[in-house]
């Protein structure tokens, strides 16, 4: 039998040695040296391709900064946010993270992210209209790595196959819809025109901008009315159920791939940096990009969005090392050449200049150059809870295409959820 005294002694001894061990592992300070480097953690979402490129970039960073080691790991996009939520709840976010605009406000406003204005990051080579998209209430929380812009993708080979002309590049919504209808008729059930474009939040957002409406107000409310959304969803009501739009059950079948990547549709409206993924999914040789339709030829509502941002945890112990790593990832020309357009078009000029773009990379860069004259300031980071709203937007549209809702029902349903989210986060 263990006597109480012996038991307590043993426990005490164990505690002391554990504490000693912990003390040995603890960092001596906030900065490291080549002999005793500090280790920062970095996490990103993506696939194997991005992982390989990131490892290369980290190796270059460690060579240039021998006093810092970077411990990296990644997951896919869906799992990424669930993991961050859990870490934030436990107070243990990684030191540096790849970030998405949709979640910037959720985390920044709840004091989870480091104010990057308090550390040294060079933003001289950035377009000044882009930087506000990483800022909330005047503080910078995220630095864009790269940009993407909204576009209509189409597959020229399929158009040729069914004998429909390629779009000219500027078009009204009526012309765009007529084009989808023509594809639907000529495609004869083998190819559909495109996905229901009214179900894409960002396309709706751009349409609002074309009409001079901001999607969200500065105090975190909706900037548009039920009537706006009703008008928007009604724009496609004559196409739903025809071959101009891919049927809901067909696109549900091919998930998680897109109908466009699965060769069901001839066009798709989305961000221009999806090029490589679409080419791989569909096996097409070439895909082209044109600006999305607008009824006002002078205002396309387009903007450059940071395709991803770099942020740091508010609780990081190594602010200096984290800042140097972010600076390196967004500015270093070698990094630009490693990633090309796989993160989007590099945001800083030094990275663009240090890279040669060829083939599909060139097509994406050329598209962003071609729309340069239409670009306006990017919208502010969306409201807290935006991730939920965007998912609901997509879901309500899917239900609409399944015939579960009328347009009026869909509008009511989305507004109900939006008001609930806004109330929750007020």
């Amino acid at each position, binding site marked *: 039998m263990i006597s109480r005294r012996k038991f307590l002694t*043993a426990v005490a001894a164990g505690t002391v040695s554990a504490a000693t061990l912990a003390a040995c592992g603890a960092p001596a300070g906030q900065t490291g040296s080549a002999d005793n480097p500090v280790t920062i953690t970095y996490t990103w979402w993506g696939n194997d391709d991005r992982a390989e490129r990131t490892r290369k970039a980290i190796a270059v960073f460690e060579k240039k900064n021998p006093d810092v080691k970077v411990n990296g790991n990644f997951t896919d996009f869906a799992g990424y946010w669930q993991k961050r939520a859990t870490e934030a709840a436990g107070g243990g976010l990684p030191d540096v993270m790849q970030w998405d605009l949709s979640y910037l406000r959720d985390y920044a406003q709840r004091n989870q992210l480091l104010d990057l204005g308090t550390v040294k990051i060079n933003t001289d080579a950035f377009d000044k209209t882009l930087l506000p998209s990483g800022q909330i209430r005047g503080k910078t929380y995220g630095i864009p790595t790269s940009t993407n812009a909204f576009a209509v993708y189409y597959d020229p080979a399929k158009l040729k196959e069914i004998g429909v002309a390629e779009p000219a590049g500027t078009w009204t919504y009526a012309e765009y819809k007529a084009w989808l209808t023509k594809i639907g008729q000529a495609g004869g059930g083998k190819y559909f025109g495109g996905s229901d474009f009214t179900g894409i939040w960002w396309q709706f957002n751009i349409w609002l901008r074309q009409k001079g409406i901001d999607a969200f107000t500065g105090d975190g409310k909706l900037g548009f009315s039920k009537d706006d959304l009703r008008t928007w969803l009604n724009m496609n009501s004559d196409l739903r159920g025809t071959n101009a739009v891919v049927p809901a059950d067909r696109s549900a*079948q091919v998930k998680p791939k897109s109908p466009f990547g699965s060769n069901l549709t001839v066009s798709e409206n989305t961000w221009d940096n999806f090029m490589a993924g679409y080419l791989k999914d569909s096996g097409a040789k070439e895909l082209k990009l044109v600006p999305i339709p607008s009824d006002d030829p002078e205002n396309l509502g387009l903007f450059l969005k940071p395709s991803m941002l770099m942020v740091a945890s508010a609780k990081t112990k190594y602010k200096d090392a984290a800042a140097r790593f972010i600076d390196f990832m967004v500015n270093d020309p070698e990094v630009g050449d490693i990633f090309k357009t796989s993160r989007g078009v590099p945001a800083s000029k030094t990275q663009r200049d240090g890279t040669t773009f060829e083939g599909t990379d060139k097509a994406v860069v050329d598209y962003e150059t071609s729309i340069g004259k239409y670009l306006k300031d990017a919208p502010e980071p969306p409201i807290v809870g935006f991730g939920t709203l965007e998912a609901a937007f997509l879901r309500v549209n899917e239900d609409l295409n399944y015939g579960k809702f009328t347009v009026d029902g869909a509008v009511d349903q989305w507004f109900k959820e939006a008001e609930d989210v806004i109330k929750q986060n007020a």
Partner: protein
Amino acid sequence: MTQTLTRHSGAPAAAPPARAPRRRGADTRAGYTFLLPWLLGFILLTVGPMLSSLYLSFTNYNLFEAPKWIGLENYTSLFQDERFLQSVGVTLGYVVFGTPLKLAAALAVALLLNAATRGQGFYRSAFYAPSLIGASVSIAIVWKAMFGDSGPVDQGLSFFGINLGGWVGNPSMTMPMMILLTVWQFGAPMVIFLAGLKQIPQELYEAASVDGAGRFRKFVNITFPMLSPVVFFNLLLETIHAFQIFASAYIISNGEGGPAGSTLFYTLYLYLRGFSDFRMGYASAMAWLLVIAVGVITLIFFRTSKSWVHYSGDAK
């Protein structure tokens, strides 16, 4: 410390069974010492989280900020949430149709396998295999591919002139698909049924044969009543199990519960509320409602079981 423990830990077992109160106290202490690792795990990993989830269910908690007490608001707003009601409907449909079908399949196959035939061992393993691998992610992926557009199931049915198209994208076919998946995994209840069938005394069948009873009569009057405790056990276990369906629904619907909410199972919606919408208080309330619902259903089962479950040695 390890040394101290090993030197002393042998003592209680070696000690003679003592009756003196002082020794008994020591035995108790030793017992608790040995129990400690499990007890700690139970308290820290089960009771603790359950209590904190009970507390959180009365709060508005977004994972980042301290929970705000809102009383019963989560519970009341649940019943105005159409998605919540839909998830209840979907789950109940799955439990009500899936569980009896699964048990019927398990019992039918157990009866077949109970007969002494050649290659019995092989068949038993073959039928049991799906329930071993059934909960895995890979099977859900295979299932999705099988029932997809122009997948094997679609092709096979077209051969017989039935054109249903892909099941995965059709809201009215996803539930039959999910039920087929669970029915196919009947291995675990089947093994328990087999064990139960072995327990039935052969004399009863012989006596019935003498009285001229046919196969059907034997089943109704001997097999089922004798097996009823096992049926009850399986029914209870599989019902509780069915309420907790998550992984296959998550995979087949890409974690969305679609198409048109037709696979929005209770636990899937709970998960989405907690980790995608950052509504952990709401999710906790849902979890507790599930605990209560399953508890009530179990209670009803036990109450009604008296009329149809027969234990050998019962007065009935």
